[in-house]
């Protein structure tokens, strides 16, 4: 009797569970967990005289990480990431507020129009910016035509252009959580605040901002972290004058051919990500509101 019972338990519970959860568990372990372990291990490896990776333990990669040039690049990455996040919030907040609270019948359309560019190829859109901002590009041509500029100005190949490109790519990631948070705002709370004597500014500071702060946090995480790794934006628009950690890593795996160093650099990114996510969770952030 007992044998039959446990066989039934197997068929009813364990087997279906295995079939359903097995593939995803297997996949995540093999293709996420294991590679990350490899990265960790690789960061302690060294190169032999033929520039091949050898399993000889060394801390030299980590020592390279605190090279002065590298430190400059970390600073630059941090600056660009902060600026990007700042400008995203600055533009996305009022924009999301207006779209989320509009009484227009086209509300859904307005929302989709923000998401649509995100579904097209980001590379080609960044290239569009290059065309627009280049010395023989549209902006210069137009400004020259209206006699605002005599000589073409190089809008490209600096940190500003890189920030612009990043803001452009990551804008929807800030809009999405903000939109969700703002939509949930109860209008009667705003009316009550006004009823009790608060002007528009006070209502915003006392009521709107605190109740939408979760959206700001989610959005900031979703913008700040990717910025550190988006090497193609800084390549195309920054032209080597706005190198990020991402660019450093990319180089080690392509031309630089120094995989252990690249792995060590990646560890920095992983650590930064983990810290930020932990802070986010500590501040009450909801993990499910990350991601699209």
């Amino acid at each position, binding site marked *: 009797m007992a044998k039959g019972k446990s066989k039934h338990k197997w068929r009813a519970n364990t087997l279906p569970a295995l079939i359903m959860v097995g593939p995803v568990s297997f996949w995540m372990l093999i293709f996420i967990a294991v590679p990350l372990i490899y990265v960790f291990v690789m960061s302690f490896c060294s190169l032999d005289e033929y520039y091949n990776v050898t399993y000889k333990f060394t801390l030299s990669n980590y020592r390279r990480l605190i090279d002065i040039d590298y430190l400059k690049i970390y600073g630059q990455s941090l600056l660009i990431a902060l600026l990007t996040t700042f400008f995203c919030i600055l533009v996305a907040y009022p924009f999301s507020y207006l779209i989320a609270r509009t009484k227009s019948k086209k509300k859904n359309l307005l929302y989709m129009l923000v998401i649509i560019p995100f579904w097209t190829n980001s590379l080609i859109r960044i290239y569009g910016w290059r065309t627009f901002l280049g010395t023989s590009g549209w902006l210069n041509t137009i400004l020259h035509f209206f006699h605002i500029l005599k000589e073409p100005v190089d809008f490209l190949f600096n940190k500003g252009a890189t920030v612009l490109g990043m803001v452009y790519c990551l804008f929807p990631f800030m809009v999405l959580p903000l939109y969700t948070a703002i939509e949930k705002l*109860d209008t*009667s709370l705003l*009316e*009550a605040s006004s*009823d*009790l*004597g*608060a002007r528009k500014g006070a209502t915003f500071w*006392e009521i709107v901002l605190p109740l939408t702060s979760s959206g700001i946090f989610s959005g900031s995480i979703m913008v700040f972290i990717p910025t550190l790794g988006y090497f193609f934006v800084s390549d195309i628009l920054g032209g080597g004058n706005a190198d990020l950690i991402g660019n450093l890593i990319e180089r080690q795996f392509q031309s630089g051919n120094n995989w252990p160093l690249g792995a060590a650099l990646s560890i920095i990114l992983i650590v930064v990500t983990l810290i930020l996510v932990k802070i986010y969770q500590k501040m009450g952030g909801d993990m499910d509101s990350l991601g699209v």
Partner: protein
Amino acid sequence: MGKIVEIEGVNKIYGTNHVVKDLNITVEEGEFLTLLGSSGCGKTTTLRMIAGFEEATTGSIKVEGESIENKEPFERNVNTVFQSYALFTHKTIYDNIAYGLKMKKVPKSEIRERVTKMMELVQLEGFEKRYPNQLSGGQKQRVAIARALINKPRVLLLDEPLGALDLKLRKQMQLELKRLQKRLNITFIYVTHDQEEALTMSDRIAVMHEGVMDQIATPAEIYEHPATKFVATFIGETNIFDGCIKEIAGETITIGVENGDIKGKGKGFAENEFITVSVRPEKMNYSTEPVNGFSLTAYVKDYIYVGSIVKCIVVLSNGSEIKIERLAGQELPKAGDQIFLCWKEEDAVLIHNQDQVFFQAVENVELA
């Protein structure tokens, strides 16, 4: 007593929807005025116009003699208790109640004093550090009231504040609110669809129907002398007869209705005018013998026992049901009896009939 709120010729139109039609109300200082009506009649819109969340399409609204059209809600000396309470979920009870004072930049020590007193007044001592989501419905309601009253507004606007409470709590709160209003001597403008609530609490009731104010009067006046058919049927129960005036002899008026003739008393009517007659069930009388001037016959259909009251349903020859209401123990027609309906002439309320209802005289119909 002065006029504290003056609404003159106010209309509110949303697109093609005429929600408030030519409204004129003068609210007396210190009174408890209720705007009563069913959903969509315009009562909440009117309240929101006084508060400042809607703007009148035409007409003017004055508070304390000053026009408030161009004033934002935070510039007006009125406060609102919202239907959903609208408590700030991220702030403590203390901060919720202190909010209005904080906006007026009242010094912290004075805030503390006033908030403490107010919390005592609404019996919420000890709740200072709690958050709204930790409170029951009744407690949240009291926080909403405290938060509004602490600002010493000249007028308090209440938008169906008791709707979410269960029956027993609601009855309790009705008395508490009335007591509070009398004690603080603040003008209350109260919105509800519950006619019993309106009758219990108000000094005056303004009955609204499809954007129009049908009548504004004391509860007794509204009940005893409804001005329109809507008011008559909305407040309490009544029996309605539509008919045409046949004869006027002094103040006594004979009216021909579908099932026969009836009598009533009134001034300002003309012969052949279409008219509506309302007789409350408790005033409805009957006789086993024919009565002079009344030719309505009916037979008894059913009895409904409602605790201390018994309602007897009788049916006319055209099938309409009439209610006769008596206290339990008093005499009522016997089952199966045929009776003649009658009443004291002054107990019938005569209302000009705007609808011009036509009817057919029914004669010689066999009764069951």
